[in-house]
């Protein structure tokens, strides 16, 4: 039997729900010569800001049990390079859903970057990143307060008709309140979760391992928490949800969809296995067969 892996997300038809998460797959081109990217349902590009950014000093990476911390700090070439170079180059090779992840430090900056990205033909979805924990005075500051989250969502909503998906931070006491605020402010979808704020210390030097002191925790360690949050938000909101956080196998994708996700992002796993998303997409039909699932979209939110 032919298994149907397709999923609808904000009116777009994705061939499968598997999407490399922002920051874990560059601008999509790094693996273009190693495998055919068209097996991926979508690709979320590296977080981009209005102006180019160098990001944080190194070390930016710290390993831990079941994952890693990163404090890259939104290194990117700026939104103009995104729309004039990165997206057109990827679009030549890739026919699936291209997601531009946009971050910023002020409402006006978010709005201008989203206006520029929104005018780019090759971009299918704008992912509004209000959850980066590794920059000061922006990013996550917008994602931890319902009023600020609503303000930036509403501001961006006025400059693009493209599907607007807000990427939420898990570093909050009530993620449902933030999710509802974004939905009410005009978000077409939600993506959760970004990384958890964490830290490691080098016991020999008595200093933080990361130059930024703290960083975002990702990897299998966060999967159960991300799953719980996806489940809560998917049942509380009516817009579609992309599940993200510690997903590393086809099994995890099924769990995320059962929890309520219509599409699933794979993050850290790409960093240790750049073929992870292809392997997951290839494994899904077998797992569906074992579980008696004909149509993947049938299981969305069954739990």
């Amino acid at each position, binding site marked *: 039997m032919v298994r149907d892996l397709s999923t609808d997300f904000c009116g777009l038809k994705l061939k499968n729900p598997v999407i490399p998460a922002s*920051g*874990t*797959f*560059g601008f999509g*081109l*790094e*693996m*273009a*010569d*190693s495998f055919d990217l068209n097996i991926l349902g979508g690709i979320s590009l*590296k977080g981009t800001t209005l102006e180019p950014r*160098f*990001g944080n000093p*190194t*070390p*930016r*990476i710290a*390993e*831990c*049990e*079941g*994952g*890693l911390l*990163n404090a*890259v700090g939104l*290194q990117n070439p700026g939104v103009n390079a995104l729309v004039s170079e990165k997206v057109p180059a990827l679009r030549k090779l890739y026919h699936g859903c291209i997601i531009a992840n946009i971050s910023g430090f002020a409402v006006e900056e978010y709005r201008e970057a989203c206006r520029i990205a929104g005018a780019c033909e090759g971009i299918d979805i704008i992912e509004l990143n209000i959850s980066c924990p590794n920059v000061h005075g922006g990013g996550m500051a917008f994602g931890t307060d319902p009023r600020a989250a609503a303000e930036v969502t509403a501001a961006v909503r006025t400059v693009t008709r493209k599907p607007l998906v807000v990427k939420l931070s898990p570093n909050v006491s009530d993620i449902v309140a933030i999710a509802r605020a974004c939905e009410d402010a005009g978000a077409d979808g939600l993506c959760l979760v970004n990384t958890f704020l964490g830290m490691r210390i080098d016991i020999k030097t008595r200093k933080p391992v990361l130059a930024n002191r703290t960083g975002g925790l990702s*990897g299998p360690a966060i999967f159960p928490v991300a799953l719980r949050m996806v489940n809560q938000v998917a049942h509380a909101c009516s817009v579609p949800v992309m599940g993200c956080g510690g997903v590393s196998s086809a099994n995890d994708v099924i769990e995320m969809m059962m929890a309520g996700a219509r599409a699933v992002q794979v993050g*850290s796993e*790409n*960093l*240790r*296995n*750049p*073929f992870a998303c292809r392997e997951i997409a290839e494994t899904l039909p077998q797992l569906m067969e074992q579980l008696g699932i004909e149509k993947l979209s049938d299981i969305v939110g069954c739990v």
Partner: protein
Amino acid sequence: MPSISKIRLEILSNLPVTHNCFRLELGGDGLPDFAPGQFVQLEVPGKYLRRPLSVHDADNERIVLIYKTVGEGTALLSQMVPGQALELLAPLGHGFTANACKDRTLLLGGGLGSAPLYLLARKLIAAGKQVNAVLCFNTAADVVLQDEYRALGVEPVIVTLDGSMGIKGMVTDAPLPEHDFFYTCGPLPMMRAVCKTLDTPGEASMEERMGCGAGFCYGCTIQTAGGPARVCADGPVFRKEDLLW
């Protein structure tokens, strides 16, 4: 970007070469061609991230990596035995530009930086170039690869920081043979001294804490004359004039 493979290889040997360095030889099918200075991301069972290790030597059937036990990951690696399998990603990064050298080259290695320079020496000699090597170590007990360089017909000048073997001091304290191009790999202070001291053109292989090793995560970025560069994907080898010390 060049094509990357994920390959599973068998451990042929994993033996100490000094008090804290091991020589790991892996064999199997599907090994790609390696340019000197390229590296692999090696799986370490029980650790989340792979470990980036530069290629010391390689052919179609085997690959040799030399590593120092610096933390938990490399300590675990040192306990692995022949017959066990390890997965790696390869080839990664941009290696040395071997044809940048016209006739006479100088290799300047610091510690295990001497390992990737060995494969370069082998390729340069095969291309008919004259190769001289100056290798610097902390102390006599850390000296590695002297015999392997000799087997290529290169008598390396040994320098130790404490003077316990060869010339005492830094690599730049040795009388440096005439050359038209140099290649260096070692600790950053050593490479900085080399690049600032020598007025000849050259290349240096940089090191930085990595996440993915394949250009995705932007974890290992350094600032260069050409703008921000990922050590893993845009390097690890950079031209002297591109490096900002």
